[in-house]
């Protein structure tokens, strides 16, 4: 087995804090939206927790950005700019997930610290971190203080539009969370990827 130091400590801490924040935000968000149907806590408590956790998530986002920008590893999120090559690699990866994996074929992507994500992961995480997260953060801040941002909200089509955008991103994240957790079971052993996110080391069979 090969051991690769794939996840440095700051990334691991960021990842798990992020996970806790997302969990709290999804639960309190559901409580805010479905009070009367879901009654885990009072509306006011849910709003307070949601706001506090939301700002923590925003802080973590900037920590993530600063770390990756400073370490020069932001490029791991950037898909291959050679479109044809990118499409070919993506199709290979998709074929693996949809066919090769079932036959026991090796994963066409070999994770390294500088090439952490396969083409499909790159597209997904690039969209999440550079598009969906900013949308989630921006709409969240707008909804946090309606009085202060009344004119911006108005410009964006009103509170219902902003709220709908915030909700749509949340729904996508929630759905993605199931896929994300499932994908962690596709390592050399079902718990390998999760273990790696604690230890930092990813183990993969010889020859990979």
């Amino acid at each position, binding site marked *: 087995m090969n051991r690769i130091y794939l996840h440095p400590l700051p990334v691991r801490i960021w990842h798990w804090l992020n996970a806790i924040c997302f969990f709290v935000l999804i639960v309190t968000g559901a409580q805010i939206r*479905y*009070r009367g149907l879901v009654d885990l806590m009072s509306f006011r408590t849910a709003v307070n927790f949601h706001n506090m956790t939301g700002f923590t998530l925003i802080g973590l986002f900037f920590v993530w950005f600063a770390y990756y920008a400073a370490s020069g590893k932001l490029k791991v999120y950037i898909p291959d700019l050679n479109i044809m090559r990118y499409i070919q690699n993506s199709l290979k990866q998709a074929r693996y997930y949809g066919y090769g994996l079932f036959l*026991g074929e090796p994963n066409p992507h070999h994770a390294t610290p500088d090439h952490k994500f396969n083409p499909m992961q790159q597209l997904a995480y690039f969209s999440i971190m550079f598009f969906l997260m900013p949308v989630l953060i921006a709409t969240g801040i707008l909804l946090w203080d*309606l009085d202060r941002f009344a004119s911006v909200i108005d410009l964006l089509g009103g509170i219902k539009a902003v*709220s709908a955008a915030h909700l749509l991103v949340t729904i996508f994240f929630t759905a993605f969370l*199931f896929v994300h957790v499932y994908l962690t079971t596709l390592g050399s052993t079902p718990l390998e990827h999760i273990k790696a996110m604690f230890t930092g080391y990813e183990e993969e069979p010889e020859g990979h």
Partner: protein
Amino acid sequence: MPTPNNGSAGRNSLTDHLSLSLFLILLILFLPIVVPAAPAALSDEAQTCLTCHGSPGMKAFGDKTTVSVQVDGGKFAASVHGSLGCTSCHADVKLDNHPSAQYATKREFVLHVAKACRACHTDSQLKASPLHQRAISRPDAQPCSSCHGSHAIMKASVRKGKGSATQYCLTCHSKPITRSIDGKTISLTIDEAWVKGSVHRNHECTDCHTAYSRENHPAPKDYTSGRQLSHAASETCERCHLEKAVKEKESIHAIMLANGDQRAPGCSDCHGAHQVGPGALADTLDGVPCRKCHQDMYDAYRTSVHGMAKHSDTTAHVPLCAACHTAHNVKPAMASRSPRDMCLACHLSYETDHRQRLPNPKAHLEMVACTACHVPLEYKRSIYLRLTDGATGKLLDDAEMLTQLKARGVTAKQIAPKELWQLYRDLNATRAVNVEVAVSMDDRRNAHYLAPKNIAVKQCEACHSADSSFFKTAAVATAGPDGRELLHDVDPKVLGSVYGAILLKQFYVMSGTRLTAMDYAGVMIILGGIAVPVLHGAARLMTRRLRTGGRKAEGRRKP
């Protein structure tokens, strides 16, 4: 020796004679002034009657009422009838025959005696005076004596010359006189104390009743109702209180009147006619005039935080009706409009006060009426969709809305979400029309139950809950022909519908009015997310043999 007759003595005698003559002339000229004229001599008959009737005595009637039978001989002698004998009027009483007539009531007796007046004062004479003409033509006319008295009747010229104009009017109007309008009896009796106790105490009756004077008493105008009389009287007030009258012309009361609704109050309905109190009186719980018509709202106010404060300290600066509704240009009350501006006029620190408990106070106050939180929860709330003109901000004419609905064939009592959206589009085809949303009281009268802070709604869940009672009813608000708000039921589903998302961009109550379509979309997307691991995982399980078999084969191949 004889005394010499000198010229000096003769001159003195002449002077004395001239002085005496001058004194006598002056005495003759001024005697009537210095010495009052002696009353006319009473007739023998009168003197005979006064033998008994000059002394105190009472006559009782069947209904237990009484009348004094004593006559002041002096006053009678000085009266216009002083030279007449008693039997000129009391014809059924003779010196040799003094019947003790029985009358059921005092009024019956007075009316009987009054017939004697008409023996001399004929109809043709009375009809020459508009006042008398009207009096004699009425079946319920007061007897002559109610105004003129009985035995001390003065000449009109003497009576008119005495006292102020008010005193002259009170000669009759202090008596129980009435008039009939539309079958209803209206008292014309004035208690002098009323006027003396009013703010108009220094005015004479004729200052207001300008058509009347000592010399002139035209026949009262004919009114079809007492209400018409009240409104006609308002014109009198306008002469001095023009500024208030101009304001009143903009009021809902003036609009009601213009539309023929005689129930609208005139000046005297609020301020009284002859007992006009000071303006400050209207700012007291007992003196506020609005309660005469709006007793239900007064009762609600009385239990409110303001009403209780007013009751405990009458001098405190606590709002009463006019503080919110204004005194003369009273605007139509609207259920769909928050009284926010009126509340905030006093509660200046509202933003700081609310920020402690209520996030986004401006956003809340923009759409949630103060009453929605500050009235106890037992009173129902509703959602109002105010259709307003984009240019003026005023409520849209109801007729315009109905025309558009009719064109779309909408006849149901409750407007459906799609119909509302179509209506919005139709209206906006020709002009800018906005939909403003307000959470307010279902019945505007209940807005008066403003409670103390400790009872105000503090639970966010009152609104922010899927099962909040606030969103069970909704109505479109437009303006009727008289400016008053008209409400049309709307299906409350519009609040959570896609149409509502387009129409009510700024109105979103988390949990309360969420877009239900988003829920379905969300469930589908999340199910999609769950489907990936479920299906892929199942496929992995089913193909496990392919992978393990491969490995086993590989293992067997290894040496």
